[in-house]
């Protein structure tokens, strides 16, 4: 349990600056600082359920923490504690909630696990809510010489990333070729389609002005590698982006457990409005499927998935 270093939190509060839960509510309680201070005060998971389920695991707090507190790992651990409590046999006679907390996710919570090493993992969101993107994704991968055989499209299996984020499973980094949805990277050791796109910008028609939504979970969790890549896009096209003054990525929370399940969900339309408040770009481009759908639904602006911009 040494990785759960909440005791190292010095309370500086830098983590609240880009916390989606804090942005929406203004409650310290729902931030990494709030959780860490609670844990330091001796509170247990059952006393902090609101805070534990408010976290969208965007990774902002981990990236900015000056003391390297592992805030995402702490939340996942607390969720596993809560899940374990719920799954214990009922000894009180009052009944125990053994129903998966997020059953509304539907096929996203299928326990089936793909056993073959797929060359392309599309993810549940694309398969079920944005299937029209699949031809352009395949087209892009073909053009850069990558196989576009979407193995999971045929089986309909879920990678289990939402189970991991709900605290009901441990990550099992299977190998895959390319992953199209950032949330699936919780379960796959693979290249991300959006990163491949950044490496082949010449293939896309990206006429400024536009707003590019960089996948927060990648940028914030692997900042040293990902930020220069997306900052390169910003410099080349002078586009607006979802980076804040700390050069970290702010999120809509659409691509989180809460956004995808609808339970404990933050106000996604409000988050979209906040992100676009200072951008006059009429076109939005992203490589994050859930955020693509959120911008499409709530921004009132033309929204494209990156592969829809292929020349």
């Amino acid at each position, binding site marked *: 349990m040494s990785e759960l270093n909440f005791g190292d939190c010095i*309370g500086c*509060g830098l983590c609240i600056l880009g916390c989606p839960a804090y942005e929406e509510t*203004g*409650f*310290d*309680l729902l931030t990494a600082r709030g959780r860490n201070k609670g844990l330091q005060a001796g509170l247990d998971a059952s006393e902090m359920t609101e*805070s534990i389920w408010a976290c969208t695991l965007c990774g902002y707090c981990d990236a900015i923490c000056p*003391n390297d507190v592992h805030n995402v790992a702490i939340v996942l651990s607390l969720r596993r504690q809560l899940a374990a409590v719920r799954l214990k046999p009922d000894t009180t006679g009052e009944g125990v909630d053994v129903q998966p907390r997020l059953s509304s996710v539907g096929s996203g919570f299928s326990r089936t696990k793909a056993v073959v090493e797929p060359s392309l993992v599309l993810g549940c969101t694309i398969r079920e809510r944005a299937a029209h993107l699949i031809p352009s994704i395949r087209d892009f991968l073909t053009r850069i010489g990558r196989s576009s055989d979407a193995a999971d499209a045929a089986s309909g299996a879920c990678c289990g990333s939402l189970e991991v984020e709900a605290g009901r499973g441990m990550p099992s980094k299977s190998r895959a070729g390319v992953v199209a949805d950032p949330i699936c990277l919780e379960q796959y050791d693979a290249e991300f389609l959006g990163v491949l796109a950044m490496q082949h910008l010449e293939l896309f028609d990206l006429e400024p002005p536009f707003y590019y939504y960089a996948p927060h979970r990648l940028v914030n969790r692997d900042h040293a590698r990902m*930020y220069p890549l997306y900052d390169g896009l910003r410099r080349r096209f002078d586009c607006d982006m979802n980076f804040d003054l700390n*050069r970290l990525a702010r999120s809509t929370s659409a691509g989180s457990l809460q956004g995808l399940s609808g339970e404990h969900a933050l106000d996604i339309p409000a988050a979209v409005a906040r992100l676009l408040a200072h951008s006059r770009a009429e076109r939005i481009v992203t490589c994050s499927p859930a955020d693509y759908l959120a911008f499409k639904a709530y921004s009132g602006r033309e929204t494209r998935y990156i592969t829809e911009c292929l020349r």
Partner: protein
Amino acid sequence: MLLRTDRASRACYRTDGGQIVYRFPDAVVHARCPEDVAEVLHRAQHNGTPVTCRGGGLTTEGESVGGAGILLDVKGMNRLIDCDGATAWVEAGMTWYEVAAALRPLGLDYTSAPLNLLSTVGGTLGVGGIDVNSPRHGCAADQAVELEVVTPTGEIVRVKEGDDYLERVLLGYGQFGVITKARIKVRPYRPMTVRHFLYTDVGVALADMMHLVEQDAVEACAILTLRDDVVALILGFECEPQDFPLRHLSERRTIATVACRFALRPWRWRDAGFLRRRQAELLPSLHNPLFVRDGCVHDRAVVFSRLIWRQWGGRRVVIPDLAITMSNFETAARRGIAVCKRYFPYFTLYAVMIRKFGDRPRYEMSAIPATDDPHVCGIEFSPLLEGADYSPDHYQRFKNAIYDVGLELGGSYYRFGGVMKPYIRRMFGEDLVNRHRAMKLQLDPAFILNPGVIFDAPEAA
């Protein structure tokens, strides 16, 4: 307005930036508008309920840690209301980071604010707010030209420059009302080019900084040290960097000088290891491409804020300080260094200068010492704990020893509330403190607003 009494909500507020004082408040109120603040204070005044006001919670002496009573969190009041290009009318629960983020799309920046961007506007205006550009622009409290304030009895009032009540509330340490909106001066946003110059003698570095400030030669400057072995004068330029006849040493000569000092003193080799370790950690941070673009520091406060927490933050934030006149600057630094060496193996000094605008009433009983000089000086003495911890008594004795230097040299302190309150009467004198306390009692008859932080409650007096 939302009132919460659950343990998790209260636990968030049981300590402050210093992490020395710990107390659970009875309840937390999240204020969203001035009317929320007014209602809380009106009811509290009637019931005699203590109210501790809190923004960023970055006090170090427990000033924003509430015990019995209500903890009033004002961070929910965080909107930029309007901006005319020269001033911005902002809600006082905005952190300076939020102010910077809101002004940046307009091509503007705040004028002067604390390096720690998590501080809120209201809290900062109540205590001062020192930036690296304070030698030119003064402290943050001198950037406010209009305020909306909720009085301790719950009235919402607006005051402008020249009004007595504005002078009471600015630098008033939260004793005379809760600032809910402020019109602050803004200016065009400009990235900053930062240069640092190394010294091995703090007196020479301070003299060079004072000379530059007197000439108004640079946009920003400050001094940071590692012990008193390596002293860095940091200069910030918003235009093309200039050369000045400074008495600094080259980096190579600095290292050679320090190495010579240590060579024949084996008992100091551990200090040499500390300096090398710090150098290895700090220098890459200064060149981090996240912060530096085309040779310029972008968003200076973001950079400094993050670096400061990473390099100088810790389980305990102990920062006794001295606010003094220019003539005592070097003496205060040297005597403070001697105190640091008695208590801790490793420490740092952060020395700044602050422009003073005449003899404003707000400076009375504040961190701006009484002097006719156009600038005043501040030095923070901070132990670098390097993983070690000490007893609370040890920290307190250290702070007392630094503050005793202040008593002997005259001047003031930045952090004189909370745990350090016993020094207030010794520093400012009975008459002045009694006069301010009488003003407090007139405005706050039940003595409910931030009680005990600066003044003794009536029954304890």
